[in-house]
């Protein structure tokens, strides 16, 4: 366990010197919190009850009956953007591990590292956690900033409560970490094969595509993201994670790293 900690500290000491990494860890969470807050700000009190009738029927599912049409629309709009919080756990780990793995490859530091009595599992765990922890922390902080801002800006506690629906809490606190695990594993696998961290990042960024598909699908009213859907999604991610972790431990062998990671 101590060795895992050594690796994590070392990773952070190295990787947070990189501007791209700092940007994705510090700036993205602020941006992701700012977007839904801006929507709340812009839609504040601008809706009247009669507009409610023009809204898609699915909107109703977002709102408890006692909310007014305008309030409900606000909840609906913000809910649409809640998915954006899922970009953080995808983007941050991929940036960190791309720079970390490719950095080790180009400076040829892997061989001396592998000559030590560290197990490859400890090394993998250290590298993964070094990317996961900041991603999860950034997601939570970002969501925290958003919640705090929303709480301040929304006078009606019923509206606020509707926004903080269990769905989004599950998404942020459960699906987020599961997504970052997918991201970190995919990123390490890709980074072991390419030599340019930006290429690795862009390839890993393709993971955002399914997320966007969900986002637009919901936006277009193809389906409604309800609690069951999110739980099934979490279960599915759990399965994917299990497979990816298994694959990583297969790739993460001393000999493979030394002879195939170019």
């Amino acid at each position: 366990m101590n060795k895992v900690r050594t690796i994590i500290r070392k990773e952070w000491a190295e990787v947070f010197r990189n501007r791209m990494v700092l940007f994705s860890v510090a700036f993205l969470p602020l941006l992701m919190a700012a977007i839904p807050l801006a929507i709340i700000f812009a839609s504040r009190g601008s809706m009247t009850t009669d507009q409610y009738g023009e809204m898609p029927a699915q909107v109703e599912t977002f709102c408890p009956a006692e909310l007014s049409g305008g309030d409900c629309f606000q909840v609906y709009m913000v809910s649409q953007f809640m998915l954006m919080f899922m970009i953080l756990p995808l983007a941050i780990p991929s940036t960190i591990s791309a720079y970390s793995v490719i950095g080790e490859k180009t400076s040829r530091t892997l061989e001396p590292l592998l000559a030590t009595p560290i197990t490859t599992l400890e090394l993998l765990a250290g590298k993964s956690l070094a990317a996961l922890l900041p991603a999860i922390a950034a997601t939570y902080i970002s969501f925290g900033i958003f919640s705090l801002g929303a709480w301040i800006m929304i006078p009606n506690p019923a509206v606020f409560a509707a926004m903080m629906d269990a769905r989004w809490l599950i998404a942020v606190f459960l699906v987020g970490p599961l997504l970052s695990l997918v991201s970190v594993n995919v990123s390490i696998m890709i980074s072991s094969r390419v030599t340019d961290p930006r290429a690795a990042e862009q390839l890993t960024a393709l993971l955002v595509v399914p997320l966007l598909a969900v986002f637009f699908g919901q936006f277009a009213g193809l389906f409604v993201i309800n609690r069951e859907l999110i739980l099934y999604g979490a279960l599915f991610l759990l399965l994917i994670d299990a497979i990816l972790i298994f694959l990583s431990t297969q790739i993460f062998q001393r000999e493979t790293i030394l002879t195939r990671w170019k």
Partner: protein
Amino acid sequence: MIQTENLTKRFGSTLAVKGLNLSIEQGEVFGFLGPNGAGKTTTVRMLASLISPTQGRAVVNGFEVGRQDDQIRRSVGVLTETPGLYDNLSAEYNLRIFAELYEVRDPAGQVEKYLRMLGLWERRFEPTATFSKGMKQKLAIARALLHEPKVLFLDEPTAALDPESARLVRDFISELRREGRTIFLCTHNLDEADRLCDRIAVFKTRLLVVDTPERLRQQMFGRKVVFHLRNLDEAMLSKVSELPFVSEARMVDGRLLVTLDDPEKRNPEIVRQLVMEGAEIQFVGELRYSLEEVYLRLVRNDGAPAT
């Protein structure tokens, strides 16, 4: 300290190391020579439990490669072909990481000891990106020593160093040897191997020879003595050739070149014979072949020493 039996490594269709048999004693400095691509680094990697042999076995420090890899990694130090330092981190932090990974009991103390020993203490807080090649190499050597390994693998420790830094590293290796460590030294520098090593192996995918530098020279070229005479002639030459202990006598560039086994004992006799023949002797000297000549002949012939 290191024994290998039929140690073999194949990468796909490339045979990198073929049936290597070695036995290296404790405290020995063992030179491992061979051209580029000979399989030296591959051998070191197998012996340090970094990659597994395709065939054969190896025992390092009493532990078997492939079965007791963890113990091997704890008891050997490896200087890899490239220093492989974390460039953005300070010299001190670079070593600190490895002291922790090697579970050194007093990390701070060991780090200080080796930073001081290699003259890097004053610059310990600077990122290693600012270091010269020689300083990086020294730091990498320090890193390999933090856990006080009994066996040390050095893969080309003086490659790319200026003569002065190379000298420093070499002196340091001599010092390590005095401490009784077993050192496996891969090098392309034959002069270095000649000076530092107790025994030398010449290797090119398979082992060509192993012996002390001195005996390699003798085996390959015999011992030769040159006589400079003011008045060398055929009669003198044939007289010397007829001596029973002389294996060969030749005239080369107006000098007499004699090959024999025990020049310390036989030279006076040759001199006496020559003087009796009326020779005027100016100098007598031993012709020493450099290890380079031995090496080149071996690697070119790709085989056993000629007799």
